[in-house]
């Protein structure tokens, strides 16, 4: 039997009274057991999409089915099959980790006989057994995020929404969370819908990536396919002297299409052109550079190709929008 897609979204729209369309007619499909990375800068519409898919915000138009249930008309059924860790770990600083799990288990109607075992199992799974009886206000950011994940798993959901789960975490905590999320999908068959503004996170973790900008999905596919779409590598040059910048830019135009990078001079190389050709040309012109780098396409290049901006630049420019 073919199982229904875990998440099916068609022409989904969310408008706010005093603002632009936060989500502007997106379509997406997530298969069971898949990790779907939803990548975009702040204010792109990622969190609004998650709020609609988790039934916390009614869509303005379009449709969305999660686990086979309509998010508009079957909210309680949707909530029964999903777990969610929303932006910022929503925890009570005065409760302990164990208190949180107990409360969540009671509200999720876990039978009394199973509650304690489930709590212990989850505490162990996220590595918080030793800290279980400490108040959450003493937890580090990584510990809070792990508890947040454990709370989302209490009722064994088949679909998990993680809204920027590693924002603000140190690299070690980030890697630990990635491993746990990967394990959930691989070993338990949980479908994961993960929003992120980290390219590396989407690249490492996601089976498929949707790139959202200005409320619209601008690209979608596996990270490899998206990068292959861009195909050719780019060359990035940091001039030694600022006054050489226009001359180098002119020279580089002969070897590829200029890329709108703020910090360095960059071109996407024409077919058949290599790093050595550019270096020779610069040498012949007597140009001195601080740094020259050949880069394979990244998801940031995909974002740049689709939107004309880098993801990092877009994030900086849209901080205001994220406060909406």
């Amino acid at each position: 039997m073919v199982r229904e897609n875990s998440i099916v979204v068609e022409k989904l729209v969310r408008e706010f009274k005093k603002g632009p369309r936060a989500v502007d007619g997106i379509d997406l499909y997530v298969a069971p057991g898949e990790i779907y990375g939803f990548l975009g800068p702040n204010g792109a519409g990622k969190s609004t999409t998650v709020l609609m898919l988790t039934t916390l915000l009614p869509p303005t138009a379009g449709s969305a089915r999660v686990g086979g249930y309509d998010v508009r008309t079957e909210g309680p059924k949707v909530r029964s099959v999903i777990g969610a860790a929303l932006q910022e770990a929503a925890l009570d600083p005065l409760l302990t980790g164990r208190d949180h799990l107990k409360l969540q288990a009671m509200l999720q109607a876990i039978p009394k006989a199973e509650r304690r075992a489930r709590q212990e199992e989850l505490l162990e799974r996220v590595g918080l057994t030793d800290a279980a009886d400490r108040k959450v206000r003493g937890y580090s950011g990584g510990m809070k995020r792990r508890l947040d994940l454990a709370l989302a798993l209490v009722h064994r959901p088949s679909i998990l929404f993680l809204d920027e789960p590693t924002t603000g975490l140190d690299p070690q905590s980030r890697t630990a969370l990635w491993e746990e999320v990967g394990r959930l999908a691989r070993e338990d068959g949980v479908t994961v819908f993960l929003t992120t503004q980290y390219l590396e996170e989407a690249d490492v973790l996601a089976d498929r990536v949707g790139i959202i900008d200005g409320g619209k999905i601008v690209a979608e596919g596996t990270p490899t396919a998206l990068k292959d779409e861009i195909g050719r590598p780019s060359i990035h040059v940091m001039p030694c002297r600022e006054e050489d910048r226009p001359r180098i830019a002119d020279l580089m135009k002969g070897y590829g299409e200029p890329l709108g990078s703020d910090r360095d001079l960059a071109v996407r190389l024409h077919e058949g052109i290599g790093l050595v050709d550019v270096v020779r040309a610069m040498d012949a012109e007597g140009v001195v550079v601080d740094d020259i780098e050949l880069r394979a396409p990244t998801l940031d290049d995909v974002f740049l190709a689709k939107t004309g901006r880098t993801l990092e630049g877009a994030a900086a420019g849209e901080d205001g929008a994220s406060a909406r």
Partner: protein
Amino acid sequence: MSSPLLTQVGALAQRSIMRTARQPASAIPPLIFPVALLLMNSGGLRASTQLPGFPTDSFVAFALAVPFIQGALFSTMNAGTDLARDIQTGFFSRLSLTPVRGSALLAGQITGIVVLGVLQAVFYIAVGLLLGVRFESGVAGVAVLLVYAALIAAGFGALGSFLALRTGSGESIQSLFPALFVFLFISSMNTPRNLIAVPWFHFLASINPVSYLIECVRSLIITGWDAEALALGFSIAIALVVVSVSAATWALSRRMERT
């Protein structure tokens, strides 16, 4: 499958009590400040009992009614700021993602406030007994007083929840708190209404429902069984519960947009 309503209410009430118990800064002021004010007023206004027509010769017994209402006002602030914090931190969204019913969310919060309100009342009664106050309505009167304390804690707690759900901001609740206290100060808290000589103050104290809430408690302490005071006090307390709970339920439906 969703858990039974009572389990949900119990879990949320337990959390509400646990939060307060773990925040001395929230748990202690409702106990200490009203009693400190009671002791200060009793010392400074003792001479009032010499006024002709003053209903008792113990000012402590007369003023002991006030902490019950002050404590309930603290409940308003605590309930409001706790819920507002839940909204601000996203904990409210976490609860919204569980099968918890809106009614359980509100009832759990209010039940927690009621339990704390009754414990506060027990503390004020104990302080009164230690200060030599004799409860004219006897043990049955004390029991009625505890029921009444539960009722006003529910009313003021629901009011705090309403404010939190509307504003979503703990700071807004705290800024409203002094405004609620104004009602207390323009009531009959320090002088029986029939002895207030200033006409405008007498008028305001007479139309202020807080006067009747205080006089209900006061009647159980110094008079015994005063049907009129009890009827007025309980009617206002019940009306407060009905209006506040209805308002909070409406505000919850607006705040909780889940489908």
